[in-house]
C-alpha cells in the first residue's frame, strides 16, 4: 500500500504543464511543499510569493486572470478562502477563471487548534457563484484532477488533505471526470458517499471487511459542485445513502446532496454525518477530534452496521 501527499501530486502536474506553458502562474501566500520548491527554482518567473496576504493574493490573481493567464493560488485552507472570500466573490462577478488550491481542509491542522481548522470551507466555496468544487482523497485523484482541469478555464476550488494518504486501489476512467465521482465498491445493500480524508478512511474500513466490500457501494464524490446528473441513478438504487464529511453539520456534503435529491425529486433518503457545532480546543489529534464527532473508525463501523443489516 503506497502513501503520498496530495499537494505534491497536484503541484507536480501543474509544474509539468507550466514548463510547456509560460502563461501558468503559481501564487503562494507563504505556503510551501517539496514539489513547489522545484517549481520556484526552475520557473522563477512563473512563481509569485505574495506574502502572508491572502486577500491581495486573490486580487493579484484577478489581475493576472484578466490578462488570460492561468493562475493557481495556494495557501493554507482556513485562510485562502475565508480570509479572502470577498476577493473570490469579485473574481466570480468578473467571471474570471482561476484555480484555488486549498490544503489542510477539515481537521487537517488538528495540532494547531480551531484557528487552523477548516470545517466551513465547503459552504464558503459553495456560495461563490459558478464555482467548481473538488475534494481530493488520495494522490492519484490529485494527479487525475490536476491533469484534467489545468487547461479548462473555470473557477476551481481544489480541497486537499494535509496528510499523506493511502493510495486507493482504483484505476481512473475517462468518464470519471465527466461524472465527478468514482464508484470504488459496488455492493447492493447500502450506499455511502464521502470525499477527502473521510473517503480515504471509509475505503480502508470497507476494504478490510469482506462483507462490507461485497455489500456496500462506496462513491468518492470528488466533485460536489456541480453534481453530475448521472449520480441520481445510483442514488435511486438505494433506500439509504449515508454521507460522511469533516465539515460542520450546518453545511457539509450531505447539505449539497439533500439539495440535489430535492431538486431532482429523487426517491432516496440522505443520512448525514458531520461535525457538531462546537469549537473544540482539545489538542489531542485528528482521530480524537473525529471520535468526539462520532467519526472514529469504530463509530463509523457501528453506523454502517446499523444500516447494512
Amino acid at each position, binding site marked *: 500500500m503506497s502513501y503520498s501527499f496530495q499537494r505534491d501530486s497536484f503541484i507536480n502536474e501543474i509544474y509539468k504543464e507550466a514548463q510547456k506553458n509560460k502563461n501558468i502562474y503559481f501564487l503562494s501566500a507563504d505556503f510551501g511543499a517539496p514539489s513547489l520548491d522545484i517549481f520556484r527554482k526552475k520557473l522563477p518567473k512563473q512563481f509569485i510569493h505574495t506574502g502572508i496576504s491572502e486577500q491581495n493574493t486573490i*486580487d493579484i490573481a*484577478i*489581475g493576472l486572470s484578466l*490578462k488570460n493567464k492561468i493562475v493557481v493560488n495556494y495557501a493554507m485552507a482556513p485562510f485562502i478562502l475565508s480570509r479572502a472570500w470577498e*476577493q473570490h466573490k469579485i473574481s466570480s*462577478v468578473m467571471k474570471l477563471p482561476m484555480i484555488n488550491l486549498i490544503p489542510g481542509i477539515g481537521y487537517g491542522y488538528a495540532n494547531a487548534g480551531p484557528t487552523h481548522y477548516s470545517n466551513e470551507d465547503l459552504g464558503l466555496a459553495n456560495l461563490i457563484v459558478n464555482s467548481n468544487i473538488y475534494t481530493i482523497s488520495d494522490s492519484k485523484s490529485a494527479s487525475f484532477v490536476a491533469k484534467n482541469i489545468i487547461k479548462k478555464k473555470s473557477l476551481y476550488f481544489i480541497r486537499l488533505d494535509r496528510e499523506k494518504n493511502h493510495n486507493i486501489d482504483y484505476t481512473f476512467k475517462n468518464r470519471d471526470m465527466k461524472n465527478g465521482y468514482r464508484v470504488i465498491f459496488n455492493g447492493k445493500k447500502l450506499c455511502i458517499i464521502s470525499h477527502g480524508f473521510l473517503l480515504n478512511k471509509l475505503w480502508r474500513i470497507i476494504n478490510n471487511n469482506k462483507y462490507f466490500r461485497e455489500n456496500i457501494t462506496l462513491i468518492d464524490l470528488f466533485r460536489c459542485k456541480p453534481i453530475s446528473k448521472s449520480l441520481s441513478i445510483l442514488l435511486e438504487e438505494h433506500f439509504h445513502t449515508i454521507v460522511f464529511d469533516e465539515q460542520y453539520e450546518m453545511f457539509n456534503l450531505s447539505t449539497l446532496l439533500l439539495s440535489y435529491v430535492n431538486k431532482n425529486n429523487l426517491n432516496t433518503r440522505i443520512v448525514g454525518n458531520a461535525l457538531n457545532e462546537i469549537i473544540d480546543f482539545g489538542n489531542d489529534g485528528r482521530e480524537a477530534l473525529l471520535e468526539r464527532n462520532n467519526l472514529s473508525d469504530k463509530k463509523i463501523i457501528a453506523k454502517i452496521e446499523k444500516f447494512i443489516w
Partner: protein
Amino acid sequence: MNINKIKQNSKKIKLEIFKKFIEIKEGHPGSILSVFDIVSCLYLGKFINSKKNTKNNDYFIMSKGHAGSVQYPYLIKNNIIKKSEWQNWKKNKKSILKIFPNNKIPGVDVTSGSLGHGLGIASGLAISNQNETTKKKIWVIIGEGELYEGSTWEALLFIKHHNLYNIKIIIDRNELIILGKTENCLKLNPIKKKLEGFGFKVEQIDGHNYYKIIPSLKKLKDSKETRVLICNTIKGNSVSFMENKRDSHYWQELTKMKKKQLLKELKI
C-alpha cells in the same frame, strides 16, 4: 497642451454628466465631483492611451467604483462606448451603463464597487506586463477611504517590492467618508509620510487646479519609480450645496429650484 481648452471641455462634460444624473435620478455626485478634474485631465490630456479597437490601450481602474461612471463620457468621446448607450442609459433593460462600472462595459477593465481591490488587481496586471513586450500603464484612482482597507496596504507592499512603476497611483483625498470627516472618524494622516515609509515617492497637489494636475500627471506617467499622487479635493466640488457635504455621497431627491441651481453653477 492647451490647459485652458481642456478646462473648457471638461466643464461641458461635467454638465452633461449631471444632466444625465438628474434624468436617471441616481449617481454618486459628491465623489464624481471630487475626482472629476483628475479624470478629465487624464483623458483630455491624453495621459491615458485609450483608443477604439486597439490592444495597446492603458488600463484604467477606478477603484472607488461609486465614482466609476465618470469615465463614460470620455470612453464615448474615444468611440469605445456608443453614444446611443449614453442616450439610452436606464431607459431600457438592454442599457449597459450602470452607476458602478463593470467589465462588460466596453473600455471598463475592472468591475468595481467594493473598496480596496484596485491596487491588488493592478499588481496582477503589472506582473503579467513584465513578461510582455508592450508595457502598458495601469492607472488606478483610489479614494482615501480605501486606505482603511488592509488589502490596499498589502498591495502597496507588493507594488514596492516588485518596483511596479507602471502602476500609476492617484489618491482622491476629499477628507470625507459616509459618516463624516476622515480625521474625526478614524485618522488617516499623515498619509504622505505613511506612503513614503512604504518607499513611494509622493507628491501632494490641489486636485482641482488643472495647472497643477497636468504637470504632476506627466511626472507620474514618465516616472520609473513607484510614485503616488495625492490629490486634495473637495467632495461635491463646484456645486455650493454639495461642497464638503457628506450627504452628497448619494443622490438626493432635488427640488426644481435645486436642479436649476446645480446646472447653473456647473455652467459657470
